[in-house]
C-alpha cells in the first residue's frame, strides 16, 4: 500500500470535516469511513487523527458529545458546527482550485 502522500496530510482537516458533514462520528469511525470511501487509498495515521480532531474542536468547527456507540461502549462523537460547515465549503473550494491547477500543469503535453 502506498504511503499517504504529504498532500493528503495537509488536507486532513478537509477530509474530517467532510466525513462529519455526512453524519456525526467518533474518531475510530471516521478513520474507518475514510478508508472505506476512498477504497483504502486514504489511510489516516492514528497518530495524526486525534490531534487534528482536537484542533478542529478548539477552532470551533466541530463539537463533541459522549454517546454510547454501536458496541454499547461510550465514545466521543463529533459533529459539524455551523462555522464548521462554512469552513468546509471554503476548504473544498480551495481544494478544487488547487487540484484543478495541478491537473492543468500535469496534463501539459511533453516534447
Amino acid at each position: 500500500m502506498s504511503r499517504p502522500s504529504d498532500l493528503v496530510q495537509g488536507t486532513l482537516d478537509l477530509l474530517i470535516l467532510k466525513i462529519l458533514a455526512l453524519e456525526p462520528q467518533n474518531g475510530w469511525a471516521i478513520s474507518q469511513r475514510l478508508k472505506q470511501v476512498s477504497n483504502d487509498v486514504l489511510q489516516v495515521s492514528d497518530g495524526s487523527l486525534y490531534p487534528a480532531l482536537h484542533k478542529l474542536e478548539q477552532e470551533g468547527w466541530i463539537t463533541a458529545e459522549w454517546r454510547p456507540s454501536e458496541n454499547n461502549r461510550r465514545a466521543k462523537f463529533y459533529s459539524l458546527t455551523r462555522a464548521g460547515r462554512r469552513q468546509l465549503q471554503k476548504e473544498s473550494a480551495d481544494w478544487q482550485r488547487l487540484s484543478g491547477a495541478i491537473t492543468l500543469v500535469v496534463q501539459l503535453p511533453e516534447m
Partner: protein
Amino acid sequence: MRFEHWIYTLPLRLRSLLRGARVEQELDEELRYHLERQIEQHVERGLSPEEARYAALRAMGGVEQQKELCRDRRRVSLADHAVRDVRYGLRVLRRSPIFTTVAVLSLALGIGANAAIFHLVDAVRLRSLPVPDAHELVDVRPNGAQAFGTYEGVNSKATYPLWEQIRTHQTAFSGMFAWGDVGLLIGRGAAARRADGLWVSGDFFRVLGVTPVRGRLIAASDDHRGCAGGTAVISYGFWQRHFGGADAAVGGTLTIFDRPVTVIGVTEASFTGLEVGRSFEIALPVCAAADGPRRDEDVVTALDRRDFWWLTVMGRLKPGWTIERASEQLKAISAGILQATQPSGYPAELMQAYRNITFSAFPAAQGVSRLRDAHDRSLLLLLGLTGLVLLITCGNLATLMLARAGAREREIAVRAAIGASRPRIVAQLVIESLLVAGAGAVLAVPIALVSARALVGSLDVVDNPVTLTLSADWRLVTFVGVSAVLTTVLFGLLPALRASVVDPIVAMRHASRGLTADRRHAIFQRALVAGQIAVSLVLVMAALLFVRTFRNLATVDLGFEPSGLVAISFLDLPSQALPVEQRVVFQRRLTEEMRSIPGIAAAASSSKIPLQRGVWSHFFTVPGGEASQKASRFTYVGPGYFETMGIRLLAGRAFTDRDDSAGRPVLIVNESFVRGHLGQRNPISATLRRLAEPGYPETLFEIVGVVGNIKYADFRDESCWCDGPDGMPPIAYVPIAQDPSPFPWAPIVVRTDASIAALTDAVTTRVERLNPAITVGVLDIEEQLQDRLSPERMVAWLAGAFGALAIVLVTIGLYGIIAYRAVSRRNEIGIRLSLGATRMQIVLLVLRDSLLLLAIGLAIGLPLTRAALRGAEALLFGLLPNDVPMLVAAAVLLTAAATAAGSIPAWRAARTQPSVALRSE
C-alpha cells in the same frame, strides 16, 4: 464568524482550566476506545491478541505523546501551564529553604530600600495636592523683586497692596486666593507655645475646594478690612491634638497673640496646607494680620505696607486658559500694578527697578515645598544608590540561580527528554524566580514604609518639622510590583535561558557532577562579577564622597566658636507698643540682666542668630567708589557681640555703649566685605552710604573696625549677589542702638558652660521678675548646628552603608567564582605542582584570575562612576565628584576586597596534595 467561534471555544477552555482532571480522563478514554476497536479489528483479521495490541499501539505512536499533542492543540497551555509551574515552583523552593530565605530576604531588603526612597520622592515631588483638579492651580511669582523690603515666610511673593491689585485686574483665573505662613503664639506668658499658622484670604478654601469636617470654613464674608480677626479654622491634626477631637472645639476659643479667637470649623484630614512637608495648625483670615504681632508704631498696618512681602498669590485657571496665556496676561498688567503700589522711602534708582518687576504664572499642582527644594537632589541620589545596590543583589542572585540550575541539570534533562520544549523549561524556571521576587516584593512593602518613616524622622529638625503622609498607596505597590518583575528578568531570565540549553544525553552522563556546560556558565558568571565590581566602584566612591562631605561640613570653620553658645529669644507682645527709644533701653536692660546670671560668661544682643535661616540686607554705595549700588548683609549687634561669639577683631575697635542713636553712625565690616567692596582702600575711617528704604532713612556710616568672617545663614557657599571667598559672605555690622526700626525682641546670644535646663530655669526666673508677659525660648546653637546637618548625616550614613554592603556582596561573588574555578582546575594545579611549581606560583595563578576580573570591573567602573556621580556636585562640600584621591581610595578598597576574596581559594589550592588532585577526575 469570530463570535460563533468563541461560543464553542470559550466553554472548552474554561472546562480545560477548571475541570482539568476530567478533561484528561476523557482524553484517555477516547484514545483507549480507539485502541480497543483497532485491536478488535486486528484480531478479527487473524492476529493474536498480543500482536494485535502491539500493532495497534505502534500505529498510534505512543499514547502519552498523543495525549501531549492533543493537549497542545487545545491551546489552553498558557494558563494551564502557568498554574502547574507555580505549584511546581513552590515545591522546588520549599525543598531548599536556605536558598529561598536568603533570596527572598535580600530581595525584600533591596526592593524595600528602593521603594522607601521612591515613596519619599513620590510624597515630596510627585503627589498633587489633595484638592479637586489640582492641575488647574497656578502660582503667581514676581521677577526681579529681591530686597525690596521685608520678607516674612518662606514662600512670600507679594505685598497686600499687590495682592489686591492682582485680584482686581486679572482675567485669567476663575478664582484667586492669597496665603502666608506665620508663627503664632497661643496661650499666655510662660504657658505660651508656638503654633504653625496660615493667613488665608476669604476665597482660599472655596477656590481650592476644601471641605470642613466640622463647622464651616473661612469665607469671603470673614475677610474684610477691620475684621478684628475673631475667627479661626483649625486643621484636623490640631483638632485631634489640642482639643482631643471633641465636638465642642467648634465655638471654642483660642488665645492668639494675646487676643481671643473663636474656632469656627475644622478642615478635612487630608488637607494640611499648600506646603508639602508642613502642616498648618490654625488658619486666620488675612485681614486679621492688621492686628497681628507686627504692631509697628506707625499706623500703617500689614495690609497697607507696600514693602512687607508676606503673601503667596495663587489662582485656579479658567477653563480653556493655559499657563502661558495667564503669564502673558499677568505680564501685561504688571506695569500698572507696580506703578500703583510703589512704596515710598526708596531712592529713585531702586524705584525704577521696582516698577520693572513683572509677574508670571507657574504650575502649582504640587504646592510649594521647602522640603522639596532642600532635599530633592539628595533623595534622587539615594534612589540611584539603592537602585545600584539592588542591581548588585540581583547579580548575586543570578549567580546563585545559575549554580542551582547547574545542580538541577539532571532534572531539566529528564524533562527535556520527555518532551518539554525549551520555552516551557525557561517558563518554569522564570516562574520560580518570579515566586521568589513576588515573596520579596510582598515583604518589601512594610519594610519600605518603616524605612521611609525613619528617613523622614531624620530630616525632621526642631525648627523645621516635617509632616508627610506616608502610607501604602497604589503608587508604592505598583513600584514594588514593577521592581519585582524587573529583578526577576535580571536575575532569573538569563540563568534560565542558559540552563535550558541542555543536551539530555550529555547531562545524563555527567549526572553526578553537574559540571556540564561549565565553560559557558563560567563566562556568564565572570561577566556578572565584573559588572558587579563596576557597580560597586560607583557605590564605594559615593560612600567615600558623602562621608567626607559630612566630615567637611561638621568640621568647617564657622568663623565663630559654637560650643557653649546659646541663643535666647523673647516673645513679648505688650512691649511692641513701646516707642523706639524705650526699646533700646529695654534691650540694654535685658542684656545686663542676662550678663548678671551666674554661669553666663558673656552676653550681647544681635538681630540675627548665627546660621539661622533668614537674610537681612541693605543697599549701599561707597562714596568715591563705583556709582552703582551694591547690596550686603547687615546685622545689628549690641556691644560685646564679637567677644561673645568669639569673632576676631582684626583692626580698629568694637562697639561700645556710646555708639547709640545720639552718636555718629558707625559700622564694623568683615574681611570679605573689605575684599569685595572696599578694594585697596584702608577700611578704617572709610565711609559708606546706606540707601533709604521704608523705616530706614539714608545714612552715612563711618567704618571703625574690621572683624573676621563668619558663616551667615548656611554652611555652604551662600548665593548672594556679591562675591565672598570660602563661602563667607560680606557682612556689615551696625550697633543695635542705632537701628532706626529695632525689634523689641532681638535675641541675645550668650556664652555659658551651664546646661540648657539650668540656664532656661535661671533665665525664665529673671525675666519673669522683669516682666511676666514675656515668653522665653532657649536654643543651644551647637546642637542646632548638628541638627542642621542631619540630612547630610543621613546621606553619609546610607551611602556608607551601601558602599560597605557593595564590598561585601562583591567579595562573596568573587569568592564564589574563584573557588569554583580553582576546584575545576584541580587537575591542572596538581600537574603543575608535581612538575615543580612552588606554592607561591600556584597562589599567584589563582589570584591572577581574581585580579583580572577586578581589572575589567574597574575599567568599566571608572567611566560609569564619572557619569553616575556627575550630577552630585551640588550635594558635595569641599570635594568634586571626580576627586582623584577618592577614586584611588575606592579602587584600592575594591582591590583589597578582591585579594581577600581570592586569597582563601588560592591558599587552599596551593595546599593541595598533587596526588589527590591527579586522582580526582
